[in-house]
Structures are given as structure tokens and as C-alpha cells.
């Protein structure tokens, strides 16, 4: 995959813009899937993806090729998403004079639009609602690790923090999500210890 990316990037830097179009086609679905879990609605996710690709095109000459193109693109998208959320927050506070807006940003219904809720199973809706209530830091690592299947090193690259920080964030994120999903009184099935002892752990999601 990296060879194809390298070729397309080289062609794009040589002046063939269509090569970048191929990169867009290649990665837009995956990037959008990650973006929509990180931001709060589909429109913002589309904006993040669009801006991320445009920023990537404009900075393509600075791409050194020491990381995978997609990891680099993730990082741009992540920064774009953070900027977008910051802007939205500023606009929201200007519009309302900073007072109580009556809008709870953690309200899952803000993300789960009526149309989507009908299409989604109850289980997915519950999980997504819990994800939305996580802090941004915790949501990011869970999205990158469990949904996107990135390695620790890649997540560290995307988020620009050391691997140790990723480990500890992931640990806290898993516990926080578990607390949101499982009521304290609910009993649950004990795990089979043998599952934990596989050296490789569980297989990650497929990465293309």
C-alpha cells in the first residue's frame, strides 16, 4: 500500500493533480469513519475530511515519507478537527454571551440524529452515546485503537504524544467507557482467563 501511496504522492508533486484525487478516493471513507466518531455530527465530519485533504495537498511537499501517508493524514485531520471544535465553541459562546445555553455538549441526542437513530441498533446507539460522553482525549485513543486499529506508535504519531501517554490514556479510557456502559450494580459474565493469555492478544481490526 505504501508503494502505491508513494507513487501517487510523487506524481502529485510532479504536477499531476489527479494522483491526489486517487489518494482522496482511497482514503476518504476511512478518514470520514474516524472523523465522525471524533466530531459531533456528519456535517462537521465531512468538513474535517475536506479540510484535511486540502491541508494535506498544500503540505504534501513536506511529507517526508518516514510515516505512512495515512497516519500523516490522520494527524492533519485530527488537528483540523480540534481547530474546528475550538472555532465552534467560540462561535457558540459569542452567540449566547457565554451564559447557559441549554445545550449540553455531552447530550448524546446531539450526535444521534433522529434519522440515524432509527437505522442504528440499540446496542450501537448505546455505545455511540457512551463514546460521545467520553472526554475528547479518551474518545480519540479509543477510536484510533479499537475502531481504526492503529498501533500504539501510530497513535502516538497522530496525537503527537509519547507512547507511554497513549498507554495510560487508553487504560483510563477503557475504564471510563466501561463505567458508562455498565451500571455499577449490574453483574457481568466473568472472562475466560485463557483469552487474556494469547501473546498477540486479540487481532486488531483489518487495516485495508
Amino acid at each position, binding site marked *: 500500500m505504501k508503494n502505491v501511496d*508513494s507513487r501517487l*504522492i510523487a506524481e*502529485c*508533486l*510532479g*504536477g499531476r*493533480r*489527479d494522483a*491526489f*484525487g486517487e489518494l*482522496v478516493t482511497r482514503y*476518504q*471513507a476511512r478518514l*470520514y*469513519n474516524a472523523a465522525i466518531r471524533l466530531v459531533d455530527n*456528519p456535517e462537521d*465530519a*465531512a468538513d474535517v475530511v*475536506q479540510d484535511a*485533504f*486540502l491541508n494535506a*495537498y*498544500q503540505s*504534501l*511537499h513536506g*511529507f*517526508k*515519507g518516514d510515516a505512512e501517508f495515512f497516519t500523516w493524514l490522520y494527524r492533519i485531520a485530527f488537528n483540523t478537527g480540534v481547530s474546528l471544535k475550538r472555532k465552534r465553541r467560540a462561535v457558540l459562546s459569542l452567540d449566547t454571551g457565554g451564559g447557559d445555553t441549554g445545550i449540553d455538549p455531552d447530550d448524546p441526542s446531539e450526535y444521534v440524529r433522529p434519522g440515524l437513530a432509527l437505522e442504528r441498533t440499540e446496542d*450501537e446507539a448505546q*455505545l*455511540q452515546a457512551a463514546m460521545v460522553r467520553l472526554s475528547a482525549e479518551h474518545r480519540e485513543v*479509543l477510536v484510533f*485503537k*479499537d*475502531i481504526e486499529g492503529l498501533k*500504539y506508535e501510530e497513535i502516538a504519531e497522530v496525537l503527537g504524544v509519547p507512547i507511554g501517554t497513549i*498507554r*495510560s490514556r*487508553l*487504560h483510563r479510557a*477503557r*475504564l471510563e*467507557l*466501561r463505567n458508562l*456502559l455498565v451500571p455499577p450494580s449490574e*453483574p*457481568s*459474565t*466473568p*472472562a*475466560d*482467563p485463557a483469552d*487474556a*493469555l*494469547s*501473546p*498477540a*492478544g*486479540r487481532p*486488531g481490526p483489518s487495516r485495508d
Partner: protein
Amino acid sequence: MTPAAELELLTRAVDGDLSAGERRDLRRLLSRSADARTLFGQLKVQSDRLRRLPKVSPPADLAARVITRVRELPPYHSVTPAPLPFAPPARRRSWALLAVAASLFLALGASSFWFAHRRSAANTDTAQTGDFRQRPANGRDRNPLPIPVDPVVRDALPPEHGPLASLPPASEERHADLLPRELLTPPPAASPLEVAVAPRPVRSPSPDLMGADFGRVASFAAVRVRLPFLTSLAEVHDRPGARDQLLRELQHDTPYRLDLFAANAGRGLESVIEAAKGCGITLHVDAAARDRLKKKQPTTFVVYVDGLTSNEVRDLVARLAADDAKRPARAFDLLHLTPAQPADGKDLRELLGLDPGLWKRPDAAPKAITAGTADQVVRAMAGGGKPEKAAVALAYLPANARVKPAASKELQQFLAKRGDRKPTAVPLMLVIRGTN
């Protein structure tokens, strides 16, 4: 082990991020603590649920939107020289050092050769001209014999040329009996003396160090970068210069894509239909596109025409701009003209159901009349007017709004009327899109 450490062990076990020793610790923990087993099970289940979340598909037109925006940016070769991608920096540094060393070595070799070449050339010249001023004056002359020097020459030499000046005069008397009489007559007058070595002939007005001629060096010239034509439709109406520039842009003998940005793409298409009618163009609007227009569904429309000359395209845009200026609120914003790209050709192939041959040059030589052309001529003669200029309007985006070419009656009508393209005609893909 503290509970916090146990918790971390459990969460890391979910990711399979444990060493052999940690796996042993985990096994012990799970065997002795039911709570740990429960928590581990919950963490594994929730991780699997996250992994199984269905993929959310992006909007159908997202890639097209991004690609259109990228097209608005200049291509790389006109902005930044493309670096060699993925070359490790250390490797590049070593190549740079090698290049510097090679340059120094070459310069050293060249200058040595030049110096030696100059010395030998000077010696040759000296031998040929009889000038011996450059002979070594240290007594180690290869020719130990006294050399006859013309007295006039000797007198003309400055005193610092001691060894030469002290050489014995040429004894004309010694050879008098051997030479013809006329040669013994003294020279007519003291002509200017060439006491210096004649310079070596220069073969080039700007010889390099080694005297080699590398021919004319081409002067550097600025690179002209052709930027896409971007202006507002209002400008086309208000400023005649913009219309002239548009015409110039249309005369590069290439197919074009013209993006018209309208506040409402539907209103934009209606305006194009009116303007086309005013310019004598029959615009066949596909029924599905008309239906979306009627229902006010957000759609990007495409109009394809390949029977207009660049002047006629300019007139169509000018007409559109003039009509737009008359409205209380303008329908159009910007227009963006670029040479069509292969992706545009691909889209048109899909939309029209055939290859429109954007980059094919129409044969200027006379050829047999096709049935379509004959029909056009017959129709024109019957109607007493010029052959009809046809265009077709179709829904372009979202992709699911497109119709199968064979199912579109209007498209088939257009294709039947289209006929052969004239050599002066400019294939045009006119895209009418909303600004949001």
C-alpha cells in the same frame, strides 16, 4: 501489586500488550480474583463492540467536493519544485558531500591541465616566433650555443633582459657569401617591432578556463505559469477586458471545463437554459434532471456541448452574465475555467454513454458526409436556417442522481443531432454547482 497496577494490567491485556512475565501475573490475577475476571470480560466485550461498529459511509459527493477544491489550487510543479520523495536525509547528505568532493577534484584537475596546457603553448609559440625571452636565464638552457639576435631587437630589449641583451650580435658578415645580394640590403625602415609573443587565437568570445568553446550559452528566461481563469460572472458583464481574457483562454485548442458557482444550482440551470436559447442553442434537458430541478433537490448539473466555437462560448457566457445582471439578486457567483482533465473525460463517458472524444482532433480534410450531417443539412435547408447547435443538460452530482445514458430520451436526441465536430469547435463541460 497495587489495584491500579492490576487495572492497567487488565486493560493492556485487552490490547495484547503484555510481556511474558506480565502474562504470568495476569494469569495469577485472573485465577485468584473473580472481580478481575469480571472486569476483564467487560473490557474485552466493549472493545469487541467498538471494533464491530458499522463503518459510516461518507456523503456520495465528498470526494468530488474535495477534488474540485484541489483543482482550484495550483498544481505542484508551478509552485514548488518537487523534492525527491522518501529519500532518507542521511543518504542525501552523503551524496551532497560526494558531489562537493567530485567538484573540487574536477576543478583541481582542470586548473592543472590548463596551467600545463598554457605553459606548453607558450613554449611552442616561443619556438615558432624566435622569441627567446622566456628561456630560462639560469644558465641551464637546453641550447648552449650562442643565438644570433638582431641588433635592433637587442637594442629594443629592456636592460632587465640581461642574458638576452648580452648575447652576441648576429654576424651578417659571416653569411654574406652564402646569401643572395638582395637579401643583404638593410630593411627599409625601423618598423614597429613585435617583441611580445602573439596571443593565442581565441575561438570564442567567452572561452572557458581550458580555452574550449561550449557554444552559445542560452540565456535564462522566466517560466510562464498559466493559471486557471477565475473571475466572477458579474465581472464578465461589467468589464469588457474580462470577456476578452475569457476568449483568449478559450483559444488554446483544448477541451474545457467551466464551473459556474450559483447560490442555487437549480436557478443556475434555468438561467443557462434561457441564455442558451438566446444564443440559438437547443439545450436538451434530461427528464431526471428536470425532475430534480422541479423538486428543488440539491444537485450539481452538467451541460455538455461540443459544437460551439470559442467565440460562441464567450458569447454564451456573456449572455448569461448580462441576463444575471438584470436580476435583482444575482444567481451566479464565480466562474472557473480550466482545461478538461482525464477525470472529466471519464465522467463524460459515463454520463453520455460514449466517448465524446474530447482530445481527438477533428479531421480538417474533406470526408464522406455522415448520415447525421446529411440530416442536419436537409433540416437546415428545409427550415431555411443554419444547422442546429445542440447541447445536453444532465444531473451530475450526487452520483446516484445520474441516469443510465440509454434511458435518457433527451440525451439520445442530443446525440442524434450532435453530428461531427468542426475543427474550430471547443468541447465544453459546463458544471453548474451550488456554492455550498
